[in-house]
Structures are given as C-alpha cells and as structure tokens.
C-alpha cells in the first residue's frame, strides 16, 4: 500500500463533500482529545513536570516514623534538628524552616493599606539546599541568619509585582513588619513557591525567638528539607538518621522516647500532597470520555463505510485490492484524527486559563499550568489512538469482499456491520456506566459532606483575622486590652448579637498539643491529651459560633486568673474522662497550674468537615495569650452589611493593623470543601458528557439501523407487525447492547473502585444503590435515545418502503 499526496487530497475532498459528517466527527474528536489534553496539562504540571529546583529528585523531607502514629512530618525541635544534621552524612545538605498556613504571618505597613503577609521563616541553608537563586538581588545565607543581622527579607515574585510594580529598585529598600525594619535583599523567580504558593516573603529563622516558640527539645516545630548525597536512596538516608535519633532517645529519654526512627520521603510528595490520587482519578475519567468520543466517531465511520458499498464495489471491480480499499478508508480517518488532534490541542489551550483560575487555591503549582511540548506530544498520541480506533475496525469491515461472502454465508454484509456497531455501542455504554458510577458516588459524597453538622453555625457570622504581634502587642496586658476593647466596640455595632474570637477558626486544624493530668480525689491519676488539642478563646466565642453549652458556663471577662485556670471541655472529652460524672467542677493540672472545668461544650469538627469531632478543650485567651486572633461576629441578617463597620472598629483602635480574611464565615466553610467540590464538578461534568455521548451513540446506531432496515421493517409491517412490536424490536436491539455494556461497566467499576475510596466521604465505592442508579441512568437514557428513532421506524409507510427497493 503506497501513500501519496494525491490520495490524501482525495481523502480530504471526500470529507469536505460531507460537511455534516465531518463537522460532527471533528467536533466529537476535538471535545474528547481536548478534554483529556486539558486535564493532562494539569497532571503534567502538577505531577510530572520537575519541581523548579536544582536536581529536584535529590530533595527529600525528613520526618519521624512512630510506631503509634506512622510517619510524622514537620516535627523537629531546633536541638534535635542540629544533632541530626551533624550526623546525617547521607545528606549533603539539611535545612529547616517554619511555616504554618494561616498562622505564619507578619503585619506589614508602609505600602499603603496595612498588609498581613504569609511569611516563611527559613534557616540560612534553605535556598542553598534547594539550589535556587534570586532573580533580583540575593537570597539570605547562614551569615544573615543570626541575631543582629537578620532584619532582611526576600520577596516572592507575585508580592514584588503586586506591591512594588516589579520595580528592580525595590531591592535595597526597607519595609516595616510587626514594628521592625527589614531590608529587601532579593526577589525569587516566578515559579518559586516554597513550601506553598501562599508564601509571600521569606525571613531568617533566627527571628523566631524563645518567646514566640519555646526552644525546648520536646517542642517540635521545624520542617526540614534535605538533599541526598549521590547514589543514596531515601531508605538509606532514613536508616542513618534513625541511628542518630535512636541515640537522642537514649540521651534524652524525657523528651525523645518513642521519637527514635526517621522517615525520609521525596520533597515532591510533600509539595504535591494528596492531590495525586484525585488527579489520577480525573485523568482516568477524562480518558474514558475520550474513548467514548472516539468510539462515537468509529460508529460514524462505520456507517459511512457501509453506505459506500457501491463505491467500494466499483473500486474493487476496477482492480483495487482489499488492502488498497482499507488504505483508502484509513486515509480519511488519518485526516480526521490529525485535524481532530490539532483542534483538541487548541481546545486544551483555550481551557488552560479557566483551569488555572479554578485550580488556584485548590491545587499546588496551579499558576504554572501551561501547554508544553510534553502536552503537545500527548495530544498527538491521543490523535494516534483515535486514528487506530476510528480507522482500523470500520475500514476492515467496510472493505470486506461483498457478494461472494454474503452468498456463501447466506447473510448480508450489513448484519456483520450491525454486530460491530452493537459491539461499539456496548463499549460506549460500559464506559459511560463506569463514569456515571463515579459521578453518582462523588455527588453523594459531596452532598453528605456539605450537609454534615460541624457542631457550630456559620450562618449570619462574619469572621476576620488579626495578628497581634510586634511592638506594643508584645506586652500581654496591651494585647489583652486591645482584644477586650475590640470586642466591646464591635458589640456596639447595631445588629451585632454576639462577638468572640480565638487563636484558630473551626475547620482549620488542630489546637496546641497540651497534656492534661487528671485529678481525682485530690491526686493525679492519669494523663490525657485531647485528640484535637487545646484552643485559646475569648468570652463570647461559643455564643458567636452557636456552639451549645451542655453544662456549666462559657468564659467571661472575669476569667483572667492563672491560679486556678478556668477551662471548658468538649462533650467527647468529658465523656472520655468522667463517663459517669458531671464534668463541671472537676480538676486537671496543666503544667504546674491547677485547672477547673467550668463548662461542657458541644463537639465541634475542628480539623475539617471530613474528620469527625474528637475530644478537645478550651482555655481563656486572656490567660494564654496568642498573637493570632480569629474574630467571629454573629449578626442579624447578612454578614456582608457589617464588614465595613467591623473594619472601622479595628481601624479606630489601630490604623496600622491589617485585617485579613474579612467576610462571611460560610465562605471559609465553602473554601474548606473547595477541592472535593472541584473534583466532584469535574467528575460530574465528565459523567454527563459520557452520558450525552453514549446517548448520541445509541441514537446514531438506532437511526442508522432504522434506515438500513427500512425494507425489513416495511415487510414486517405488511406481514402484520404492530407499531408497538416494531418499536420493541428496534429498541430491544439497542438495549441488548446497552445492557451488556452496562453490566461490563459495573464489573469494571467494581474492579477499579478502590481508587475512588480516598475521595469519598461516608460513601462506600461499592454502594449498591449508587451503582444501580448509575446503571439505571444509562439504561434509561439509552432507552430514550433508542425510542426516538424507533418511533420513526414505526411510522414507516410499508408501501413506500417496499416501492423504494
């Protein structure tokens, strides 16, 4: 079989002569290839493209491996870190940093509106370990990371562009943060987002003093990043670090018992986090959409080929071999696949800005999402796969020798073509059921997640965040007086019903890991650690968030003493410690102080909506002051009408204090489910597309079948067939294929359902109700898609049908 451009031109001309067919085929291919290429663009950027660091495969994160809790990352004390670093010969470099999303912030003034910036506290080795240089100025090193020399700051590219207009002269200028002056020494490259895209500035770690975080061996707050020596595996590095940690456990049993084993994982795992599973699930889902689209076009090609039997017979009579006929038909498929692939790439390119905007804040590296040569290669590969499916089977079938075989076998060639069409239809139905199962399950999961009772009410609550640190806020009395004055001012705003606050907002993570010694009958009997930790809150906190007080009372302005610390416990903690007794009035010891339970509050989901409420306890923020302050204001009506007044109340007290995240608390809850919502939306979109494409496939196959069987239907009607039996005959043919496909799709889904398990909340991936619903949805839609052309079959005029023969 030889190929020349004349034949290619003929194939293109043949396609141009049937614009309807060509338009539908190209649109379907562009949709299938475009959707899968667009999602691959995200996968390539987030999972496959190398991190923007020097030799990123060598970079690792070092953590603990505890028998009781598995790997724990992000937990070294400065002392442990230095000891481990000194003994880690398998790592050419090991550095540390401190960053807590939402809490690691600094108040920046002097650039117009006061700003609360996300600051990463990094040691002087971090940039060297990562192998990244500044694009303007320089990064800081060990010489900068010492008291007296550490008033320097490195800016992110985004912060530099937004607040300095990308002015190179920004380097060398100074800014005020928390009342201190810092010199800007550098600006990082645009793709540098370490440890997350939220980071806006990097400051020397030595700025974190003992006052900020106790520098004790048992207080573990440093994250690590290291670079493996040449030829060393993470497991070998872990073995060596474990040796050092075992020595520390022996030398410091008070603080290090049970902290004697290390875990080392690639840095990419940390930065990419838990998006790998959902992204791969999405890739699989869009791959199925692609396959359905391609099978649809294969249907069209098959019908086109069978409709050209006369042309092909003439070509055969003129001497064309079967190979030649196949080649002739394949050329058209090749032209379609090539143009479809190019259009698919165009669709992906057009979708990229949309994907970037919806992925921002929910996926790491979202700002880097872009078409690159690998993505273009993927689109070409998708085109090749489309060509193989769209071209080969229909071409082989259509170019089959006609008269001889059909006479010998006693059956028409169209019967075989019909069987192939039914097979393709079954495949489409199976693929669609596969996706519909995922769609129903994720929708069910999202519904359950968004209807979970978090233990508090966010309706009619405005929230905001302040960071009371630096300057006069370093004085406990001043910061407490500020909080009290703010509560009083906000409470005076007409319509405000309750005001309170705390170090952390609900659904944003755990509290501080304090241990409590339980006092029974005057003596300490046991020690417990509340599972969610301890939370520092102000008076009004429970009222503002509508957290019910089940017994006793909440904090008041009078709860300021450390002699006997007042404490509120959650219902789960009360049930755990005093299952048969009233918790109010019971005693604990915290550190060296006595504490008394003054109230029992309802359980609250603190970590996230997915995580169940666990035991926790509350302490008065006035007694345990913290710089981070999340305020909650319960109002009459919509919180949006109160935001300006709340901001003004802060301004009146301190015009230089930035107010962050001011808005309805419901928005925070929304953002806490943004990723599952995005995942569900995409899966549902793919599921709907799959259903639509499969329905079109059914419609097309049945409509073609009706056209092909017009004479047969006419004969049957002449022989006495009723309209209902004609409809039943036509529909049942299609439904047989759809049922077989749906069954196969269900079996396939059950085989792969475990990949979805981690993305589901309170829904089993094998939930029979959901799977039945998915299969019923497909079969119902397929029935409708078959019924429409079948109705036309029943209205065929038998006289006309037979006369036209």
């Amino acid at each position, binding site marked *: 079989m030889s190929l020349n451009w004349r034949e290619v031109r003929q194939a293109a001309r043949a396609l141009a002569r049937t614009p309807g067919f060509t338009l539908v085929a190209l649109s379907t291919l562009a949709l299938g290839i475009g959707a899968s290429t667009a999602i691959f663009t995200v996968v390539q950027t987030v999972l496959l493209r190398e991190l923007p660091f020097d030799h990123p495969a060598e970079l690792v994160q070092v953590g603990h491996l505890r028998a009781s809790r598995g790997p724990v990352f992000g937990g070294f004390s400065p002392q442990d870190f230095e000891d481990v670093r000194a003994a880690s010969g398998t790592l050419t470099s090991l550095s540390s940093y401190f960053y807590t999303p939402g809490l690691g912030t600094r108040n920046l003034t002097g650039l117009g509106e006061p700003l609360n910036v996300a600051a990463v506290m990094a040691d002087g080795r971090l940039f060297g370990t990562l192998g990244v240089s500044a694009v303007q100025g320089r990064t800081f090193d060990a010489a900068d990371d010492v008291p007296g020399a550490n008033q320097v700051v490195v800016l992110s590219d985004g912060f530099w562009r937004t607040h300095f207009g990308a002015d190179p002269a920004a380097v060398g200028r100074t800014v005020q943060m928390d009342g201190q002056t810092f010199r800007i020494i550098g600006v990082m490259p645009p793709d540098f987002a370490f440890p997350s895209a939220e980071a806006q500035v990097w400051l020397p770690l030595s700025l974190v003093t003992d006052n900020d975080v106790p520098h004790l061996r048992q207080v573990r707050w440093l994250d690590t990043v290291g670079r493996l020596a040449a030829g060393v595996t993470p497991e070998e590095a872990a073995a060596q670090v474990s040796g050092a940690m075992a020595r520390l456990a022996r030398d410091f049993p008070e603080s290090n018992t049970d902290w004697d084993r290390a875990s080392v994982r690639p840095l990419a795992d940390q930065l990419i986090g838990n998006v790998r599973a959902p992204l791969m699930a999405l890739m699989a889902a869009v791959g199925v959409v692609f396959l359905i689209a391609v099978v649809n076009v294969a249907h069209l090609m098959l019908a086109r080929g069978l409709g050209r039997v006369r042309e092909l017979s003439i070509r055969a009579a003129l001497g064309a071999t079967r190979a030649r006929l196949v080649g002739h038909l394949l050329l058209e498929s090749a032209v379609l696949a090539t143009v479809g692939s190019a259009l698919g790439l165009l669709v992906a390119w057009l979708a990229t800005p949309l994907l970037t905007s919806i992925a921002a804040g929910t996926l790491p590296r979202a700002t880097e999402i872009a078409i690159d040569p690998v993505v273009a290669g993927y689109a070409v590969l998708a085109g090749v796969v489309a060509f193989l499916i769209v071209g080969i089977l229909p071409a082989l079938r259509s170019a089959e020798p006609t008269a001889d075989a059909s006479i010998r076998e006693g059956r028409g060639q169209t019967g075989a073509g019909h069987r192939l069409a039914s097979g393709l239809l079954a495949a489409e139905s199976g693929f669609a059921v596969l996706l519909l199962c995922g769609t129903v399950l994720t929708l069910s999961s999202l519904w359950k997640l968004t209807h979970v009772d978090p233990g508090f009410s966010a309706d009619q609550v405005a929230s905001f965040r302040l960071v009371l640190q630096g300057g006069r806020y370093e004085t406990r009395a001043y910061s407490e007086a500020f909080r009290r004055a703010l509560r009083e001012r906000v409470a005076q705003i007409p319509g405000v019903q309750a005001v309170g606050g705390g170090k952390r907002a609900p659904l944003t993570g755990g509290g501080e890991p304090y241990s409590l010694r339980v006092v029974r009958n005057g003596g300490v009997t046991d020690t417990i650690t509340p599972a969610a930790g301890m939370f520092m809150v102000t008076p009004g906190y429970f009222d503002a968030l509508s957290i019910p007080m089940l017994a006793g009372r909440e904090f008041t302005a009078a709860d300021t003493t450390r002699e006997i610390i007042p404490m509120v416990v959650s219902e789960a903690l009360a049930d755990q410690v005093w299952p048969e007794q009233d918790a109010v009035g019971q005693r604990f010891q915290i550190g060296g102080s006595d504490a008394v339970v003054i109230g029992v509050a309802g359980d609250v989901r603190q970590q996230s909506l997915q995580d169940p409420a666990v035991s926790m306890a509350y302490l008065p923020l006035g007694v345990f002051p913290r710089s981070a302050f999340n305020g909650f204001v319960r109002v009459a009506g919509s919180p949006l009408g109160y935001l300006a007044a709340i901001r003004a109340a802060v301004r009146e007290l301190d015009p230089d204090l930035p107010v962050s995240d001011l808005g309805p608390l419901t928005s925070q809850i929304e953002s806490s489910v943004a990723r599952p919502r995005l995942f569900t939306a995409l899966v549902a979109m793919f599921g709907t597309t799959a259903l639509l494409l499969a329905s079109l496939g059914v419609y097309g196959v049945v409509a073609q079948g009706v056209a092909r069987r017009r004479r047969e239907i006419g004969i*049957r009607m002449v*022989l006495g067939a009723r309209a209902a*039996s004609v409809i039943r005959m036509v529909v049942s043919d299609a439904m047989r294929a759809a049922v077989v496909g749906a069954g196969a799709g269900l079996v396939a889904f059950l085989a792969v359902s475990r990949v979805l398990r981690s993305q589901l909340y309170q829904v089993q991936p094998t939930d029979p109700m959901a799977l039945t619903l998915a299969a019923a949805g497909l079969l119902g839609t397929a029935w409708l898609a078959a019924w429409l052309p079948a109705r036309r079959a029943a209205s065929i*005029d038998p006289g006309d049908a037979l006369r036209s023969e």
Partner: protein
Amino acid sequence: MIRLVNVEKSVPTRPSPTFLLRQLNLQVQAGEFVTIMGPSGAGKSTLLAILGMLDSEHTGEYWFGDHAVHALAPKARHALARASVGFVFQQYHLLDDLTVAENLDVPLGYRNVPSKERQAIVADTLDRFRMVGKKDLFPAQLSGGQQQLVAVARAVIAKPPLLLADEPTGNLHSEQGRKIMELFRRLNEEGTTIVQVTHSEENARYGHRIVRLNDGWLSGD
C-alpha cells in the same frame, strides 16, 4: 368481499395535484381471482396498496365485507389487514437474516399464535409447499423461483381470505412463473380470493376476470 365507491387518490404537486386513481368503482366477490392490468403508471400498484389497506390516503369509500375501511381508525384498519390480507411481491421481500422456516413464522408471531401451534403450522406449510429440505437455508441461498415460493407460502400461512400479488412472476423465468401461477390457481380453488397485478396476458388467463386501468381510470372490466 371488496367494494370501492368513487375512490380517488392523488399526490400533491404544483401547480395542481396529480391523480393516480380517478373515480374508481370496483367490486370483487369472495373466491374470485381478479387480474389488474394496464401500462406502467396506470395506478395498478396504487390500487393494490389501497386494497391491502397499506394506503388510506384516498377519497371515496372502501368496503371490505361489512367493514367501512375508509372510516376505520388506523389501529382498527391495521388489525383488519392483519386478519384478512396476504401479500406477494415481485421482489419477494423475504427477510435476509431469517431462514426459510423463520420467514414463515413471522406472520404467525405477529398474530400472537402460540409457539407450539406456530411450529406445527410452519412444518405443515413447509410440507405443503415441498420446502422441508430448504427450511434452514437463508433467502440468498435460494433461486428466484424458490424465494417466491417461500414468499407465497408466507403470504398464505396465516390463512388470509384475500391474497394480493404485485407482479408475482416479474423476476422469474417462464417455467418458474408457471409454477407460481399454478400455485395461485390451486390456492384460489381452495377458497382464497386473489387479486394480482401483472403485465402478462398469460398470467392473466389464470384468473376469472381482468380489470384494466389507464391513467388512473378504470378502462375495462
């Protein structure tokens, strides 16, 4: 059995409709064997379609026994046709994907004849038409004459009182054609009323009466 009163059939054309049948009055008695003849375009097949109740888009009256076919709702008309009329076509119109036996079974299935009874009727018909040895063959494996034999057998298997045949020997050579016409004569003698359309004077002689059409008008009876 059949009475047509002022039947007219036209199709919309510009500037004025084209008439296929004009003011047709015709009676066919039960047990008759009537031949309709005329040149191409005279309206023979149109008349056959109306008689077979496939075409109801006409004016005038069509009485089938006591039934006013022209006034029947489609469902009732189809039911009457199913019970009363068998068709034989020039192109045989066998179902290609069904065997001879399966083709014979089709009309019985549409008349809700129980399965066991159907098997017996099909076996009896195969025997009666001497096709037992060919029951498992597909139409494409039969000669033209054999296919038309199957078509006739299928047309009468449900024992319709009226058999309509449109050029039944048109695709057959003379010997095959004679056999089919002998079969028609035998069926007529057994009580089936037959109306055939043909160009062949020889075939017309098998019938009792010739009705001639010209440009849609009845020109001789």
